[in-house]
């Protein structure tokens, strides 16, 4: 049986005790998936998994607190689930995790860039192990998975769900690469270049808050300080400074919590490379506290605790 059939069987056996199971279905065309809330066995037929099922469904979990929910997770999504559990934002007893062994997902941004023309409506998609062929406006383009895989998948260290009541598929190897070339290239730039880059890039931001809404760790929802008027953390003018300030609020609140699922960057309508900031912050957390969010249960986020003598922090003398 294919992993999808295994998954369907597993969900079918648990569906009775659950209010819903969150998965993916085909979206408005074959290239795009969209989240699916499975409430009955009939819904189960629409379930899809694979490289096009890009969303991190853990984002929905805090909002469904108090309900019995099943969730399908890839390796990266499972880190978000673990992090939410560690922070007591969701309850383990109310949760059934269906884990996948993931071989990577696509980046729709890269697909869009690789196609000769903007495809508009995609008529047919044919998936094989390492190619994706897309038919749009009567034209078929064959793309290699390696070229269109999401950045996070190229350095994926946790392809298999780290937490799962049911694990489906055959376990995948983690990637050898641990850093991205574009990240290193950006970090090597001078302060002035980085400043100019953010100034230019943030002038594109339309402050739609999609990055915040897609983030599984952004759980304040209506109480987000960036939309509060008292205190007024963030002005309403759409200037690069205020837009950057919003991103810094986001990153600051994710310190030691970000699981690098990349939903912020995927959700951004104006292609701001938000993960440059997130990855850098995570690297600092890793360096100082040897902490990687969402990789083990019972971890305490590093900023919620302290040591009297910090080995990782070198105090500067005067």
């Amino acid at each position, binding site marked *: 049986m294919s992993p999808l059939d295994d998954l369907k069987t597993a969900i079918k056996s648990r569906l009775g005790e659950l209010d819903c199971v969150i998965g993916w279905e085909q979206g408005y065309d074959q290239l795009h998936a969209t989240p699916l809330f499975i409430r009955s066995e009939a819904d189960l037929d629409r379930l899809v998994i694979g490289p096009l099922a890009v969303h991190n469904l853990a984002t929905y979990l805090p909002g469904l607190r108090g309900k019995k929910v099943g969730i399908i997770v890839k390796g990266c999504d499972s880190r978000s689930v673990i992090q939410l559990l560690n922070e007591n934002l969701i309850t383990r007893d109310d949760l059934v995790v269906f884990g996948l062994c993931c071989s990577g997902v696509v980046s729709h*941004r890269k697909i869009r*860039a690789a196609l000769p023309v903007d495809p508009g409506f995609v008529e047919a998609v044919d998936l094989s192990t390492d190619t994706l062929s897309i038919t749009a406006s009567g034209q078929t383009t064959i793309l290699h998975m390696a070229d269109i895989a999401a*950045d996070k998948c190229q350095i994926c260290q946790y392809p298999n769900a780290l937490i799962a009541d049911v694990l489906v598929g055959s376990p995948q190897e983690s990637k050898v690469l641990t850093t*991205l*070339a*574009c990240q290193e*290239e*950006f*970090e090597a730039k001078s*302060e*002035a*270049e*980085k*400043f*100019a*880059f*953010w*100034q*230019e*890039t*943030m*002038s*594109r931001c339309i402050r739609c808050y999609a990055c915040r809404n897609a983030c599984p760790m952004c759980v304040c929802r209506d109480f987000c300080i960036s939309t509060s008027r008292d205190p007024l*953390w963030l002005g309403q003018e759409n*200037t*690069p*400074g*205020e837009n*950057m*300030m919003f991103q*810094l*609020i986001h*990153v*600051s609140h994710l*310190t*030691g919590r970000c699981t690098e699922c990349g939903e912020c960057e995927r959700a951004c309508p104006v*292609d*701001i*490379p938000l993960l*440059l*900031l997130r990855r*850098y*912050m995570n690297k*600092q*957390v890793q*360096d*100082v*506290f040897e902490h990687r969010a969402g990789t083990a249960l019972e971890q305490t986020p*590093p*900023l919620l605790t*302290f*040591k*009297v003598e*910090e080995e990782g*922090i070198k105090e*500067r003398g*005067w």
Partner: protein
Amino acid sequence: MSPQNIRELRIVGFLCNWCSYGGADTAGVGRFVQPTDLRIIRVPCSGRIDPLFIVRAFMNGADGVLVSGCHPRDCHYAEGNFYARRRLEMLKRFLPITGIDNRRFEYTWVSASEGQRWQHVVTEFTRGIHTLGPAPSFNPVSETEWNKLAVQASEGQGCPCHG
């Protein structure tokens, strides 16, 4: 560094009520000469300082930010500065990626009796900020700069990996 012959820069200081604010006071009572660029904000504890206070100060045009609290183990609230140390260290390490020079931000510990140490810290920090000069502003000020941004945006520059 005397205020008479040099342009003042804007340096914001967040000082905890129990140690560093007292230390600054001791320095004042002792009539130690200090640079006058620092504007002090008194907070109950260094643990009260959200790293975003510092970010906000930079975004609002501060040229430097200095945070000072009680020495670790000496916190008036027992553990506030232990949490602060973690947060401030993460901010200090994070700043370079944003293009803000992290030498513009410093955190330190000064007790209420250390007037001289306070004088030393302020003098050194202010000297450092004057070496760096005024901080660049995120918000373009002139019409020409806005037009330049519009041209850049239409060219669609971005992260090299998303080009």
